[in-house]
C-alpha cells in the first residue's frame, strides 16, 4: 500500500488560498488520490479525487504532477469554516480489497 506523508499542521487567514501537499512516492499504476475533510466529532467527508493532471470541483482543486509521486490540494479563499483536518489517501479504489488506510492528516487552522 502506498504510504502518504503530509504536514502535520498549517495556519492560514481568511480569504487566502491554501495548498496542502501530500507525498506518495510508492504510488502504484492503478492508484487514485483522494482527499477527505474531517471536522471534530464527525466522520471524514469526500472533497476531491484524481488520477493525474488537474481536477477541479466546486470546493477545491487537485494538482497531480506527471510522476504522480505527490499531489496538492488547493482550497481557494478559505474561510473560518474550512478549519478541519485534511487527509490524503492513495489506493486502487476499484480493487475490492482496497483497505483505505488514513494517515495522520493535516490540521488546518484558518484565522480571522
Amino acid at each position, binding site marked *: 500500500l502506498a504510504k502518504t506523508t503530509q504536514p502535520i499542521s498549517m495556519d492560514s487567514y481568511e480569504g487566502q488560498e491554501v495548498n496542502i501537499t501530500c507525498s506518495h512516492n510508492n504510488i502504484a499504476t492503478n492508484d*487514485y488520490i*483522494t482527499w*477527505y475533510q474531517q471536522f471534530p*466529532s*464527525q*466522520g*471524514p*467527508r*469526500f472533497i476531491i*479525487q484524481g*488520477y493525474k493532471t488537474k481536477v477541479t470541483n466546486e470546493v477545491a482543486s487537485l494538482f497531480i504532477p506527471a510522476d504522480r509521486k505527490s499531489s496538492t490540494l488547493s482550497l481557494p479563499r478559505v474561510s473560518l469554516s474550512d478549519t478541519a*483536518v485534511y*487527509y490524503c489517501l492513495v489506493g486502487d*479504489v*476499484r*480493487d*475490492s*480489497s*482496497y*483497505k*483505505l*488506510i*488514513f*494517515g*495522520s*492528516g493535516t490540521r488546518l487552522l484558518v484565522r480571522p
Partner: protein
Amino acid sequence: DVKVTQSSRYLVKRTGEKVFLECVQDMDHENMFWYRQDPGLGLRLIYFSYDVKMKEKGDIPEGYSVSREKKERFSLILESASTNQTSMYLCASTSPRGRAGNTIYFGEGSWLTVV
C-alpha cells in the same frame, strides 16, 4: 443520499462487558470498514469487509471482532471491553467494483467510554 447509520452515538460500558457496535448502510455497498479515532492518532483501521461473511484485519484488530451476515450490516464486537478501548468508532462504506471516482461514506461516529 447515501446513508451510513451507526446504532449508538454515545455508550458507557463496564470493563469486561461484551459490546456491539452496529452499522447499517443503504446503498448496497460491497465494502464496509470500522475505524477508531483517538486524539493525535488519526483514523486507524480495525477491520474491513469486502463481501458478506468476508472480513480482513486492518492495522489494529486486537481485542475486536466483526460480523457481516448481511450486505448492509457490519458489526464491531468488543468481546471483553477494556479501558484502552475508550474511543470514537467510525463505520464507513464504499462500492469499488468497476467504478473509478467512487467515494467512501462515513457514519456519524459512536463514542464509547469503558469504565
